[in-house]
């Protein structure tokens, strides 16, 4: 099986090449393990054993220390974790924030699968690559390969090889050591002078061809970006391009009202959306506007402070900080009317909230005004939460009290 013609045609190293080392051959693992212990105890460093299958305990017999590979793998895994975290944060949360299903831009759970996968991927690649490098791989040629007998290391023989470059190596003494180990035979291995140390030329050509070929896809993409074509585009995945579904606001003749979007079934209530408290949600008690705040709204400094903050955001642009109807929008409108651009235009100033008729209004009515709007004022119900609207009402009341005290 191992005596094929290929192997015989391989060039043999000339006998006058310098000595590369000595190898001993064994026909079973046990004498080789015993020999390994002897070589280990003799203090050799540059030597190795070869066997067709893993031998348990050989690493102890050879005095091999625990490998550093696990630490390298741990490093690779942590790099993968850090890389996955950084690239997801940078692309999705920092450089190009993209809102997905209302989640925060940087929401960790969605990123965990990638973190996990890249940790495993980096750890896996690191294991393979570091293992190869630690074993001096890739090794394109080794003087032992020139020995025909050595092919049996992958079949039924066991070899122990000591390099001549080992500081303890002495041709006669080392041969003596190996002879004392029940070896079948001991042979010299000469340096490999049969092949050139240069990289073969075809590898260089192949690299040029592959590099050129690698540019082609990018060149095609660039061409497509800057040229026009009358051909329709290729639909590689037709059922993704044409999906059997209706988009929002489209027509659908199937329904009598021709609308694809279906309204909610009457009486549908979403979870925690049951608003059956008229006082709280509509500011009404029976048919009248409520004159008191709902019990859910606490009259304290925190609520007024919250109201002041919301008022500052939503109301001051028109009504002004003190609610006198002189916000920035009014100031700007007056400025425009006074200038040439606004000649002939009219502007109705927003309501001054500190008027007696407004002081007399029930809190429920003010709440209703904020919720649904009045005259030019739009509805703020969809923008400000129920509790916050009541807080704004409370703050408006505070403003009114302050202005009436000032008069």
């Amino acid at each position, binding site marked *: 099986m191992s005596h094929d013609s290929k192997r015989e045609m391989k060039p043999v190293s000339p006998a006058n090449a310098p000595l590369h080392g000595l190898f001993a051959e064994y026909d079973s*693992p*046990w004498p080789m*393990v015993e020999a390994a212990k002897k070589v280990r105890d003799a203090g050799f460093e540059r030597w190795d054993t070869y066997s067709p299958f*893993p*031998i*348990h*305990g050989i690493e102890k017999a050879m005095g091999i220390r*625990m490998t550093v590979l*696990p630490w390298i793998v*741990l490093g690779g895994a942590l790099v993968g974790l850090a890389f996955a975290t950084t690239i997801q944060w940078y692309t999705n949360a920092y450089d190009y924030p993209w809102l997905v*299903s*209302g*989640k925060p831009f940087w929401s960790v*759970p*969605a990123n*965990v*699968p990638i973190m*996990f996968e890249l940790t495993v991927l980096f750890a896996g690649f690191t294991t393979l690559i570091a293992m190869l490098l630690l074993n001096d791989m890739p090794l394109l040629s080794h003087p032992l390969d020139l020995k025909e007998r050595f092919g049996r290391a992958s079949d039924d023989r066991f070899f122990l090889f000591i390099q001549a470059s080992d500081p303890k190596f002495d041709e006669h003494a080392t041969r003596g050591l190996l002879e004392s180990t029940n070896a079948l035979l001991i042979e010299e291995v000469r340096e490999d002078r049969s092949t050139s140390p240069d990289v073969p030329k075809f590898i260089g050509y192949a690299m040029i061809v592959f590099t050129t070929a690698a540019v082609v896809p990018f060149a095609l993409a660039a061409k497509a970006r800057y040229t026009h074509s009358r051909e329709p585009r290729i639909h590689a995945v037709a059922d993704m391009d044409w999906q059997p579904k209706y988009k929002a606001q489209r027509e659908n003749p199937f329904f009598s009202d021709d609308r694809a979007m279906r309204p909610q079934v009457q009486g549908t209530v*979403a*979870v925690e959306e049951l608003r059956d408290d008229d006082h709280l949600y509509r500011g009404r008690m029976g048919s009248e506007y409520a004159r008191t705040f709902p019990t859910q709204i606490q009259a304290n400094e925190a609520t007024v402070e919250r109201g002041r903050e919301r008022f500052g955001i939503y109301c001051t642009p028109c009504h002004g900080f003190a609610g006198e109807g002189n916000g920035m929008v009014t100031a700007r409108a007056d400025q425009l009317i006074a200038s040439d651009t606004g000649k002939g235009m009219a502007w109705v100033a927003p309501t001054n909230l500190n008027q007696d008729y407004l002081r007399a209004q029930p809190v429920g009515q003010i709440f209703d005004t904020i919720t649904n709007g009045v005259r030019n004022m739009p509805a703020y119900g969809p923008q400000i939460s129920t509790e916050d609207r009541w807080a704004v009402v409370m703050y408006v009341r505070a403003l009114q009290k302050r202005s009436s005290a000032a008069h």
Partner: protein
Amino acid sequence: MATSKEKPESSKGSLKPKANKASSASESVGDNISGTELAGGLVSKGGAVAAVGLGISVVLGMMQNDSFRRFSFSYLTAYMWALTVVLGGVFWVTLQHLVNAKWSIALRRMGELIANAAPVFGLLALPILVPVLLGHDTLYVWADHAKVEADHALHQKAGYLNPQFFLIRMVFYFGFWTLLSRYLLKQSVAQDKAGAADVSQRLQRASGPGMILFALTLTFFAIDLVMSLDPYWFSTIFGVYYFASCVLAINSTLVLAQVWLQSRGRLTKSLSDEHLHDLGKMMFAFTVFWAYIGFSQFMLIWYANIPEETAWFKERISGEWLDLSWGLVLLHFVVPFFGLLSRQVKRNRKWISFWAIWILVEIYVDMYWLIMPNLKAEEIPVSLLDVTCWIGMAGALVAAIAVSAKNVNLLPVNDPRLPRSMAFENI
């Protein structure tokens, strides 16, 4: 783990299955493999601890004056914790037969004994079963007929979640686990005496269908006893989540069993650090597996954000429960992950025992996290009952395992693969 070879220089390699009498089994292995004296002490001590612990729990439960509601929750938590060990044992032994594992043969008898605690836990299910059969909603709201009729969702699920079918299922679960673990132990013990190698093949053949049925029973068992505490919530991965704890529990328990038995002079020559190393690898792997499954369950629900699914997690991320949830992530995954990463730790009996205890404690915390929020308390309802129930249940577990250990070797002496298990080495 899969590749194990006899040590060339090992004298144990010469061991051959002999057709001699069981009494000389110890001599043939050259090791102390008798568990009889130890078992007797464990049964009486464990039984006493169980009686006292559970007795005190009943008294404390009565003092709560809540018709045993708080007691039932503590009892269920401790019960599900103890069953992770037992069901882990059933799974583990079946798995070793199924894949024809060699490394674990020397540990297998311990697994068989642990699995055989199953019938005792069938009896210990009575405090959970009886209120259900009486139609009380102490634990399960679906047991109360009036409440089921008043609730549309529960009414729809009543075909499955009803006391009678629950009883039938429980009898089937424990019947099957008892039969399977009995069969595995009996055949294995018979092999000790007769030394027939075909016993191993017969057990391997039985463990295929056994494993399929085990997967189904375990899944539905976890759904019935824990998930149905909140009958509105559902998660198809729930059974696997409980299964992860089972595998963690059995490997941790086997570590503790080996270390303890060897400290009492048993199996000192048959079991080595190599076995601890392999059990440690399984503990590490299933620490990751537990986190993987737990996160898979969480992420899908979090992402889809459908109220009927998120409600269950919302309970567990509000108030003090959030601290407990973070505690689980940290102490059930991150800390043991790095703790068990090193080869040296797995081969050091003090360290690996430490992590085995750590994991068993964390499994209890996990069960607490699954079960206790259903009390609908804003704060974590820590109670003395949790401690007394756990002590009682742990005593019952030890006694139930030791009961079957009388007059049984601690090593399957005539398994033809035993020498390979005793001599195996990790690369």
